[in-house]
């Protein structure tokens, strides 16, 4: 299970960075989304995957008796998903506006900011 996760995360990171390095604005967004998901899965994996052991202390004892699924990474991922969702929707609107104003989706042609003014 862990190995499968590790491979998926690796592929997501690689694909995300590859897409960000492309010149098209739309692919930039796809790259951002992939990278965000990769990071979320990474938190999940590094919080140790434990199957079928909810973090609930049995009634008769006061401490955990065996390994349990750590709830903290899930809280972190939830936060991170919400944040990256917000950022991604902002990115889509931004790219749409940029496309409308600049009239290109090629990042190489976006060099008005580097011109001498």
């Amino acid at each position, binding site marked *: 299970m862990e190995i499968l996760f590790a491979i998926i995360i690796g592929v997501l990171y690689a694909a995300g960075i590859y897409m*960000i390095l492309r010149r098209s*604005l739309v692919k*930039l967004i796809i790259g*951002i989304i992939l*990278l*965000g998901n990769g*990071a979320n899965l*990474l*938190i999940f*994996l*590094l*919080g*140790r995957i434990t199957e079928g052991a909810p973090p609930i202390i049995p009634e008769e004892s006061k401490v955990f008796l065996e390994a349990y699924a*750590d709830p*903290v*990474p899930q809280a*972190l991922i939830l*936060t*991170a998903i919400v*944040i990256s969702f*917000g*950022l991604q929707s*902002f*990115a889509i609107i*931004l*790219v749409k*506006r*940029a496309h409308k*104003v*600049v009239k290109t989706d090629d*990042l190489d042609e*976006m*060099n*008005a*900011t*580097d011109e*001498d*003014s």
Partner: protein
Amino acid sequence: MFFWYRINAQRIISILGSILHLGLTIYVFSFIWNNGTQTLQAGSWEAPFGITFVADSFSITLVLLTAIAGLAVSIFSASSMIPDRLRFGYFPIFHFLLLGLNGAFLTGDIFNLYVWFEIIIISSFVLITLGGEKAQLEGAVKYFTLNFLASMIFLTAIAVLYGLTGSLNMADLAIKVAEVENRALVQITAVLFLIGFGIKAAVFPLYFWLPASYHTPPSAVSAIFGGLLTKVGVYALIRVFTLIFVGDAFLDELLLVIAILTLFSGGVGALIQNNVKKVFSYLIICHIGYMILGLGMFTEVAIAGTIFYLIHDIIVKTNLFMVSGLIYRIKGSSSMRALGGFYSDYPKLSLLIFIPLFSLVGIPPLSGFWPKISLITASFNTESYWGLAAIIFASFITLVVIAKLWAEVFWKNPGEIRKRIKFDYFHKMGKYRKLGFVAPIVFLSFVSLYIGFGAENIQILSSRVAQELMDNQLYIDAVFNNVQNPE
């Protein structure tokens, strides 16, 4: 929110809010100065389980500076921003940005720091795109991509750190990271943090987004960005590398090399620029180098120099971008080639602008001079002569750049600037709007002068901060002692 379309009410609320913020911060600052580090456990969840907020003297100094710069920019934007932008919620977003900055300075939890960073960047995205001009949108695309990438790298680093230690509280991490046996993995995590914060702080190989975007928004926005946003990255670097990843020779070496290259490349970049705002953007990068250099040398004197430089730089950079906005309003251009004759037209204003410009260079007794003494002393003590050379070289380049700027903008006979018809020129404005332009610059110039002439007090402050930073046990105790005797 209640006054979405009533700009005047927004202006007044914003300025009053900033004044209140400043007053409260001064109160908290003096309280912490007398009583030592304060902590707050959110929801009474004891550290390291809950989210901790820690106000040590370093954090509260930065919060104080945020309040000062925030007040100045709030007054400045009340008169410099055109109503169209204000109508789309400029002030609420601006204050959200300040909220994020304060949160990032005060939090004692690394994931919480990530959340504050996101609040900062999402408000800065809105501020940088507000108005929707072509250059703004292009700059925003670059700014967005790089900052998002930085956040993701930061998040990855948090994930790895959590996997290693199972903790997110920074004080707890400081204890647990020291105990981890797999040092290579700790080093990799540290480098991930360095890259993530480095992009935000705009250090050497990662700064290219900054000069491509900082000159595009209106000057009020550039002022708060230039003064505070990159400094959050520097703050996070200092915090993480003095608290969590301590005493790693490789990392210190890496920081030194990065700092030296940042000093060189930022300085040289500033030399060839023509746009006033772009010159200042490159100077931001150049001067980030000083702070990283102090961190890399990692002695108490060096850290004190870094803190002093940070204090000086936040005030001066905010001021300079407001100055560039003033020049733009008066002359209708920010191109150095076209500008000129400012001194003969506005001698008093020129004298005022002289203060921040030459504070930046660090001509004694102005404020930029004092931290450099500490940094140079420290580089002698640690025998890092490359660092010494870089400090002197970068100071020299800054001097050349500022002298060139002074000659071109203030002394030279003006070139041809086309009169713009629908442009809001400075001399056409009413008395109060003019005051709104000049008052914040005067205010920050006085603060700069105080830092310069009252250098002794600032030196005491930065030495104390440096002491607290060098001894990370103090921070750890402050977080955990409150647990043992909750009030």
